[in-house]
Structures are given as structure tokens and as C-alpha cells.
């Protein structure tokens, strides 16, 4: 949203509208309606308006525009792994949930050896230094540190499953 606020005092700023439209298309929004201190931008996609707009409602929250920014985090096959970069999920009600992603391509191991206990289980509390798994690449067994602290709420890949760069491995609740 940061770039949208650059020219916040001019609702007619075309680039912003274009970006809003991109947002709408990308997220299949039917309508965008932004108002602020007498300003308003309202965009609606598709054809027939259902009900006529009923005038400006003061105090309508701008965060209505937030859902389209939700980062999609597929947990399916290796080829469809989520985009790399920031691990944090910016969705308001899940802002405390982050993903530990694979830093390399290789084979995932949840435990140091077949007879050992897993490094972590769902429900475990981890800190930045906790080893969460091993990824084997080129016969090298790389211990992977969590790099974030919190509680493990899901393990997203199976033992000995191939994982590639950026593949989400663990879902972590970072609330204390």
C-alpha cells in the first residue's frame, strides 16, 4: 500500500488507479471503493451494478482493500512453491504466522537419522537457532536453523521428499 500513499491527496492520480485495477484483476475484485476525508475512489469490475450506491459513509475503513494483497502460499508440489523473499505473511489476522522456507534444493529429512526423534514436532516451541530439519544436497547433510522463533503449527513436507528453493517447510506461529 505504501506506493499508493505517495499522492494520497489526489484521488485522480492515474497510476494509482491503474495499479488498483491491476489489483482488482489479479484478485478478481468486483469493486474498489476508497474514501477519505471527502476523497473517494471507487472502482467496480464487471457489468451490472447490483444496488445503487448509498452515498458516502464516513469512516469506512480503507483496509477493505487489504485482502487482495494476501500472499498465496501453495503447499503443493515442488514446482509450484511460493515466491521466495519475505517469509512473513502480511494478512492482518495471520500476521503472526510465518513460513520457514527451504534455502536450497535437496531432500528433506525431519530427523538426524532413521532411528532418531524428529527435530521438531507440531506444537514445539522453537527459537532462531533451533535446527528444524536436514536438507541433503550433493551428499551433504545441511542442518537448517529456524531463523525465527515461535510455535510450530504445521510441517508441510514429508520425510525424504524433494524440496526446492523457497519451498515452505514449516508454518510457525510467532506470537509469544
Amino acid at each position, binding site marked *: 500500500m505504501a506506493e499508493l500513499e505517495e499522492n494520497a491527496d489526489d484521488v485522480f492520480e492515474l497510476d494509482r488507479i491503474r495499479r488498483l485495477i491491476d489489483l482488482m484483476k489479479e484478485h478478481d475484485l468486483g469493486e474498489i471503493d476508497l474514501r477519505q476525508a471527502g476523497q473517494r475512489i471507487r472502482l467496480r469490475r464487471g457489468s451490472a451494478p447490483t444496488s445503487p450506491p448509498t452515498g458516502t459513509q464516513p469512516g469506512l475503513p480503507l483496509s477493505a482493500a487489504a485482502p487482495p494483497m494476501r500472499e498465496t502460499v501453495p503447499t503443493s508440489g*515442488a*514446482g509450484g*512453491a511460493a*515466491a*521466495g*523473499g519475505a517469509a512473513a505473511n502480511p494478512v492482518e489476522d495471520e500476521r503472526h504466522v510465518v513460513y520457514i522456507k527451504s534455502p*536450497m*534444493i*535437496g*531432500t528433506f529429512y525431519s530427523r538426524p537419522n532413521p532411528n532418531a526423534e524428529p527435530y521438531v514436532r507440531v506444537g514445539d516451541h522453537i527459537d532462531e537457532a533451533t535446527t528444524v530439519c536436514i536438507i541433503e*544436497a*550433493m551428499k*551433504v547433510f545441511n542442518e537448517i536453523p529456524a531463523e525465527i522463533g515461535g510455535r510450530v503449527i504445521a510441517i508441510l513436507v514429508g520425510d525424504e521428499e*524433494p524440496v*526446492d*528453493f*523457497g*519451498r515452505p517447510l514449516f508454518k510457525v506461529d510467532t506470537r509469544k
Partner: protein
Amino acid sequence: MYKRILIANRGEIALRIIRACRELGIETVAIYSDADRGSAYLELADETYCVGPAKSALSYLRIDRVISAAEVGNVEAIHPGYGFLAENAHFNEICRSCRIDFIGPSPQAMQQLGDKNTARGIARAAGVPVVPGSDGLVANESEALEFAREIGYPVLIKATAGGGGKGMRTANDDQALKTAFAQAQTEAKAAFGNAGVYLEKLIERPRHIEVQILADAHGNAVHLWERDCSTQRRHQKLIEESPAPNLPEDRRRAICEAAVRLVQSAGYTNAGTVEFILDQNHNFYFIEVNARIQVEHPVTEMVTGVDLIKAQIAIAAGEPLPFRQADIACRGAAIECRINAEDPEHNFRPSPGKIDQLLVPGGPGVRFDSHAHPGYVVPQHYDSMIGKLIVHKATRAEAIQAMMCALDELRIRGVETTAPFHRRILASQAFREGRMDTKLVERTRFD
């Protein structure tokens, strides 16, 4: 033949190799970086793995990541394409030590020919002319004069530690050489702290002629005729063609046969390109071997009908060449233009971004090798080539005409491309008459 190979590359050449594999019934494992995630060509691979972030040093160039992908993907061989790890003998060796075939020459052949002096030695031994040079430092003025008289003027004086033109001088006669020799030494000393210089014959208005070769593991080697890649801009090839125009048939055969002698002497296998420069009297001199498939390989495919990527794979798998020299005819004329996302109106600055519209030319003899499509975003992280437009017609004049039409027809919106610049070169008298040399583009204003 292989059942499954990994393609250690991206973009159009990855797509080219995937297509060849599909036609051969070979499964493919493609790798990609974050920047190429979701590219349409990846959908044609049987498996895909992300090997790292956009930066190629952290993805396509990371040997460990690529090998790891090959292991995870359980492949028998790796095709390196061109660029990235294609001529990395170390990578080549690691592949083999991991029992994965590298689709290319042996690391030894790659290393030998990668070293300029060794390669020159091999060429000389094979009776292939090299650019006459002192092959070592010239101690003083009188040695320089003696050597210059021996190889004939004009000569080039180069700093042994040199680069970027520093410590480089030309001389047309004894008098000029005396001055230039001293200047070059002084400049080299100042620039590199090393006054050592050597002498080389200066080839004026050189043409870049290269010969495509294929050599199998059973001692068979053939050439697939030559390509003229003289149309360059700052050492970047712009337009490639086959056959080379204005090259007498006897010289053509001599240069092609020299290339075969050279690779056979070097024990080179798989596809390779032997580069020569050609002076205005059609004397040719060996420069180097490109131990990989090249960007411009399609022009050779068009005139010979041989699929070079398939040939590479078959050779690596141990198959003998399915043809002999006499079977390889060169029919008609083919030209390739590299379509780069660059703005020719602004000094060829990169023009990455989203391709909004893409209308591709077609018809008989028109081929467009490209991974781009409407909606494709040209990433800023890699080279700017978005496609290769190739035209094959009965004669060079027809090919030029058809290429101009194809360039006119090609419509790319969203990014700037080099297509209009190619159009102007093709329309020029110099190009049409086949009077290109490697500096033509730089010294000419094309209107």
C-alpha cells in the same frame, strides 16, 4: 539413449532443448530461479525445480544447486545450453564424478581448448593457421622490428597484462613501430605495472567466420559448414548467417576442413564451433573454439537440415554420427537476428518489463525461437535476448528480403527491442552486398 535429462539453463535455449527432448521421447527436468518462476516454457518440462533467487550467481551458476537438482530429479545427463555453466570445465568434471553425463566435450578437451596458448599450439600442429604473433614477450625494439618484418605490417602491439585497449598500439611501418613500441611499453607499465608487450599481425576489417562441427566418441568428425557472424556491435553478435557471403568456394572448403582437423587433433567430441577471423584477402586465422552449442546454431540447422541439439544428445549418449561429411549439404541461405529487449534509440540500454502484445511473423522458411509470449515479463537479471528470428530462403537476397518483412511483421509491445535496428542494417548497401566486417556496425550510421 537417455531416459531423462536436466536442462541447466533458462529462456529460449531451455525451451529449445525441452522441445528436442520431447521429440526424442526423453523426459526433462528444468531448473529455474525465482525470476523465471511460472514461465510458460517450464510447463513443457516433466519436472521443475527452483534452484535459487533471481541472481544467477545464486541460482543458475551455483554448481552445487544444479547438481543437487539433477540428483533430486534423478537424471542421467545434463544439457548446459550456452552461457551459465556451459563452458565450465569444473562443472563438467563434477557432473561426471556424480555419474551424470555432461552433454558436451570432455573436461580435458574443454580445458585444453579453453587455454588460448594450448589451443594455438594444437591448431599449429594440425596445420591450421593462427594469427601470426610473437607468442611471447618482445624484449626490445630491434626484436620487435625483426618480428614485424617477418609477419608483415600492419602489426598490433599488446600488453601482456593488458585489457581494455590500454597498452595497445598499431604500427604500419618500421618508423611507426619504433614510436608505438615505446609508447605501449610506457603505457603498459603505467597501467598494469608490467611493461611486457607482444606483437601480433593486425587483421584489418576482419570478418568473423565460424565453423560448426560435430564429433562423436567413435572418432568421426564432420563440419556443418560455416556461419558469418561479422555483424556485431561491441563484440556482441547481432546477425548471423550461413553460408558466408563472398567467400570463394575453395576458401570455404579449406576453412571448414581446417576446423575438422583441429577438433580431431584435440580429441574434441560433441558439438563445437571453431572461430576464425578472415582478412580481406580471404586468409583465415584460428581464434578459438566455443565448446558448447551456440546462440546462432539455428542458421546451420536451416541450411543443413540437421537438428544440432538432438545430435548433441545422441553423441553424449554414445551414438555414432548418423551421417558422413558427404551427406551434409548446405542448401539455400539462412539469416538469424537476435531480438533483444534493448532500446536501440538509447544506446541499447536494457528494456525489461512485460510484453503486452506479441505478434510473430510466419510463413515458409520463417522460424522464431523464443520463450516469450503475450504477458511474459522479461526479467532484468539475465541477458536481454527474448527471441531469435531465423529466415531460410533459396538465396541470400531472398533471405534478406524475407527477414526485413519478418522484422516488420514482428510486433512486440511493452518492451523496446533491437528489431528496428536489425531492419536498418539489413537494408544497408554494405550488408546487402555482403561487405560486413566486425566493425561495420560501429562505424556506420544506418538510416
